[in-house]
């Protein structure tokens, strides 16, 4: 972990700042471990408790769907999983590293090296070609321009968008844009793909295509997929369904994957 963090020219000083306690308790059997995680927004009377103490373990290779009504805390949990936010109390171990004590930049490095993100609103850079969008994460990894190009083309091929490299997001359909976003998320070969309502803006047919793609990536590449959704049809693609309710885990069940 520590050695891997040191890849990339600028990561050295960042990883040197990782506190020894975070590295002294590795639990490599679980990719993700929540221990009594709470999250409180605001202070005093105006405070809002989004997470009330979550315990959760996700192993490498799982396809997890997180469900729950609005305000149940699933988005908050997703932000913490993606190292965009830190728990108010409790501990979040990612690959055995305590994320709560890491600096903003150290968390950015975790995202850069191990995580891929897919959003509901695609979040592609406008007026930028599909290929350049996919190349973006590699740019921050300091990959050479030829390496970036080759890997971005490969990722676009994986999501079935060969021939659309030069099109900008405005020239692509919603389904195609989400495929570009998935290509961008997997171009760095991440260990975990975090998808926040990836089919929220798509019709049923496009949604199924996206879910098939995520399933394929999970099965064939062994990428752990953690997906937030409120559509049971989509959650049915997962191997495990976790339901959130009022900031707590209401249910956590394995799921027999729908054959596709």
């Amino acid at each position: 972990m520590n050695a891997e963090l040191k890849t990339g020219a600028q990561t050295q000083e960042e990883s040197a700042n990782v506190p020894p306690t975070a590295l002294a308790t590795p639990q490599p059997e679980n990719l993700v471990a929540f221990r009594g995680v709470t999250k409180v927004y605001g202070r005093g009377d105006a405070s809002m408790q989004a997470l009330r103490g979550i315990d959760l373990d996700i192993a490498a290779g799982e396809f997890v769907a997180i469900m729950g009504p609005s305000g149940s805390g699933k988005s908050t949990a997703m932000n913490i999983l993606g190292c965009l936010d830190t728990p108010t109390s409790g501990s979040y171990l990612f690959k055995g590293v305590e994320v709560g004590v890491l600096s903003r930049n150290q968390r950015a490095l975790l995202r850069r090296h191990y995580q891929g993100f897919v959003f509901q609103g695609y979040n592609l850079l406008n007026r930028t070609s599909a290929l350049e969008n996919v190349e973006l994460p590699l740019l921050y990894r300091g990959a050479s321009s030829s390496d970036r190009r080759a890997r971005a083309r490969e990722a676009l091929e994986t999501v079935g968008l060969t021939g659309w490299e030069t099109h900008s997001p405005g020239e692509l359909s919603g389904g195609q844009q989400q495929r570009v976003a998935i290509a961008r998320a997997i171009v760095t070969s991440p260990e975990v793909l975090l998808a926040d309502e990836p089919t929220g803006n798509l019709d049923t047919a496009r949604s199924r295509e996206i879910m098939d793609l995520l399933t394929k990536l999970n099965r064939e590449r062994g990428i752990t997929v953690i997906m937030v959704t409120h559509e049971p049809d989509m959650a049915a693609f997962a191997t495990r369904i976790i339901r959130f309710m009022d900031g707590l885990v209401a249910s956590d069940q394995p799921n027999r994957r729908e054959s596709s």
Partner: protein
Amino acid sequence: MIGNTILLALREIKRNVLRSFLTILGIVIGVGAVITMVTIGGGATLQVRQQIASLGSNMLIVTAGKRMGPGQTSGASLFKEVDATAIDAEISDIAAVAPVTTQSLKAIFGNQNWTTAVVGTDNRYLRVTSRALKTGRSFNDGELRAGAAVCLLGETVKKKLFGSQEALGERIRLQKFSCEVIGMLEGKGQSSMGSDQDDLVVIPLRTFQRRVSGNQDVAMIQISVREGASTDKAKRDIERLMRDRRHLSPSDEDNFTVMDMKEITNMLTGTTKMLTALLSAVAAVSLLVGGIGIMNIMLVSVTERTREIGIRLAIGALEREVLTQFLVEAVVLSSFGGLIGIALALAGSLWLSAVLNVPFVFNGGIVLIAFLFSALVGVIFGYFPALKAARLDPIVALRHE
């Protein structure tokens, strides 16, 4: 990484060509104005120097009376021709000494008349003031001794009285007497003070004393110091000699003045330089205004691209990488402004120097300084917006519409 960042910045600028251009307009004008001012100022300074050099830069002028201030002198007895002879004989390192006395008189030829400066002196005057004869000859010893009615004409006087006609050998009237034109002086053009150096008639000193002033006085003595010798030393020596000749006791103040053309040169170039600096400082203010323009647009850009920044941060960009991106963009923008400003300034100064009749002096130093300064403006005014971008919370930024 920095190469990529510059490429990224260029792409961003290309997307908003019109806005980018308007953003850098302040820098363009600032850099352009500063370089133009300095270039034209440099040309003007050079011109002043050249004109004074053509007058004789190592020239000393001895006048009677103590110089009190600009144009003011206290009354004191004038010199005699022997004073000039004494300086020539007793002071070392002197190239030439000319006794000079002048008066404004009306010159007449046929039905043309022209009021000009009549200079009574001898042939050494030509050497001291570095003038040459275009045609004809200078005075001979007989004419000088006898005070003959002969004269040398400056170009302006010749043009006013004779037009395109040949003047050599003709006789012109100077007030009460007529004299023969024996030589034409080479033109020297305008002096740095704007006076016409070719508007003069030169006659022998004795002729002047007999027929114009009616006394033996000499108003001033012009001295040219030998090339390479110290004018300061010559000046001190002359002062000592003149005090002696004028019988001044040690407690008396000088009743004459020795002016050094170098001092006048420095005074005039000093004025030009100060004006240049002042105008440049005013122009530099627009650079500051340009910087504020860049900060304004960069802040707008950060707000507009909040979502993009959120994406970058979520993907794993470090704070300093986002900071660098926006900083580089500001610097690239302002440097572009600098480059356009330099191009405009060079074209503008070439044109202005032609219009103002001032030599064009390319000053590479100020071009470099102006360019570096424009880049620095980008760094200074781009830093705050870039910091704002880098400090964004990715969760909030991603939700930004």
